[in-house]
């Protein structure tokens, strides 16, 4: 099976974030990491390849810094990478992001495309499904298991509140992958070394420009949400805090 995995670079979970000057996004001088579900999507693609053979290709769109997520994927075992490299790509909405991906892979024939179920920063939860529609492929979302079948694949969808559902579907298809579908591997030293020689194709903005339309939505402003609940902050040394909290639990919450 030939599988494409979309991997987005997002601000690190613990990174302190500040608004940018125009107040529409964050300042970019933070540490970045792989979007969490995308790491699971890559792992799943590598496992499918180990079982059925084929190729794993990874793709990202973003500025030079985002090459890091491709390097990590190559070190873990992906065969090659595609980098849509330009600052402008991050300003695209999910619709346009999917359009540039479709344009970048138009000469390839994938059996499966994996995306994460949503990004940890923007979190639209749309890019994979939009891409499927643009390609005219079937899709399934929030996937927790993938088995090859005679007619295509059988996937396990997570539903709300602990429910699941199996779905049979033909290939090619797009799947959006949920965190926890598998156990992640670490890159090995030899993997990191080999990654340096693996092909990484760069795609410029000019090459896919014709696929990009106007953004269909706009961020007017971004801000720190107002607190609605009255929260009492307990301060002091650890033992003082422990005493204060137990006092609250006993006299106000009345559970002790």
């Amino acid at each position, binding site marked *: 099976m030939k599988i494409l995995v979309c991997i987005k670079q997002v601000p690190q979970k*613990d990174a302190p974030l500040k608004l940018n000057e125009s107040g529409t996004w964050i300042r970019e001088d933070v540490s970045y990491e792989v979007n969490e579900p995308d790491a699971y999507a890559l792992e799943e693609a590598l496992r499918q390849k180990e079982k059925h053979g084929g190729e794993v290709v990874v793709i990202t769109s973003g500025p030079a810094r985002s090459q890091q997520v491709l390097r990590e994927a190559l070190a873990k075992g992906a065969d090659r990478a595609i980098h849509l490299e330009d600052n402008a790509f991050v300003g695209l909405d999910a619709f346009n992001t999917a359009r540039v991906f479709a344009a970048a892979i138009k000469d390839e024939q994938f059996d499966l495309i994996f995306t994460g179920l949503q990004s940890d920063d923007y979190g639209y939860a749309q890019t994979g499904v939009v891409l499927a529609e643009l390609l005219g492929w*079937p899709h399934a*979302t929030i996937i927790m298991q993938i088995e090859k079948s005679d007619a295509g694949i059988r996937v396990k969808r997570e539903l709300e509140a*602990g429910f699941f559902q*199996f779905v049979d579907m033909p290939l090619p298809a797009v799947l959006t992958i949920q*965190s926890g579908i598998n156990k992640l591997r670490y890159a090995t030293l030899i993997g990191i070394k080999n990654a340096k020689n693996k092909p990484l194709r760069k795609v410029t903005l000019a090459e896919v420009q014709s696929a990009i339309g106007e953004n*269909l939505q706009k961020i007017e402003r971004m801000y720190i949400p107002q607190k609605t609940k009255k929260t009492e902050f307990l301060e002091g040394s*650890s033992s003082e805090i422990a005493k204060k909290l137990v006092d609250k639990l006993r006299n106000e*919450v009345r559970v*002790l």
Partner: protein
Amino acid sequence: MTDTILVVVEQREGKLNRVSWETIAAGQALAAETGWTLEAAIVGSVGDLAKEVAGKKVSKVYEIESPKLAPYTPDAFSVALKQFIESKQPKLVLMPHTYQVRDFVPKLATAMGRTVISDCIGYKKEGDKLVFTRQMLQGKFSADVSFTSDAPWFVTFQNGAFRGDKAEAGSAAAPVETVNVEIADNIVRNKPHEVFKEAKQAVDLTQAEIIVSVGRGIKEQKNIELAKQLAEALGGEISASRPICDAGWLPMDRQIGSSGQTVAPKLYLALGISGAIQHIVGMKGSRTVVAINKDSEAPIFEIADYAVVGNLFEVVPPLIEEVKKAKAGG
């Protein structure tokens, strides 16, 4: 284009998904503010669900029908709603941000050359413009987002963003109209099987009065022990955020949140949990929330009654001792 707001309600296993009432409430508020007409639609309706919706203050309820709409598939839902929306031309289409809607609405909007502002928590009317508020960066920020494209505009609302019990009843039942849609034979490609629940749950956390819940701030599997000791001292149960259960550090049936259990104990003590919305929906009904987190900006503090900004590994050990003392009558 008519000045209409269309709410697409959701049914699951023959029942109306309760979150639909929240979307109706959102639609009613928007209708009051814009003066637009509010209508509702139910896709592949069964039984009296449309009548139930017609009892609310809406102008009309449509049942969109085709034998191909059951069981749910994104292909059939998308084609059915596209036909319907193209014929009725509503300006604004509202849906709850459920797993099912996430599965088909980006496809539907793309097929119509439109976009979805997804997972919104509110809206504002600024002059003639509607902007929709959504959380960014896991709730650390909010943003107001507007449409730059033509209608129909698709918006999905986060679970809990509006109060379902605030959905107003109508003075008389709204008319119900059945609309049959054509879905060709080759449209539906996925073959879904029955919905099922994984192994029976061994623990029922819904009855627990005190819950100590651990998140990724616990760092390592062996540290779970510390949280267990606190739970034991308090006489409560232990639970966790999803990543802890994904890692196998605690069993799945101890996961709290949208894909786990929903609990409402007297005390919910969150250790090293950031407070992502998918976690919050599972515990926001708790009477008292205590959060211990080293990040003063963690969204969990938004809903905490008592907050400790600090390292849980420093705070929890003396806390266990104090609880024990208190229990011993100290």
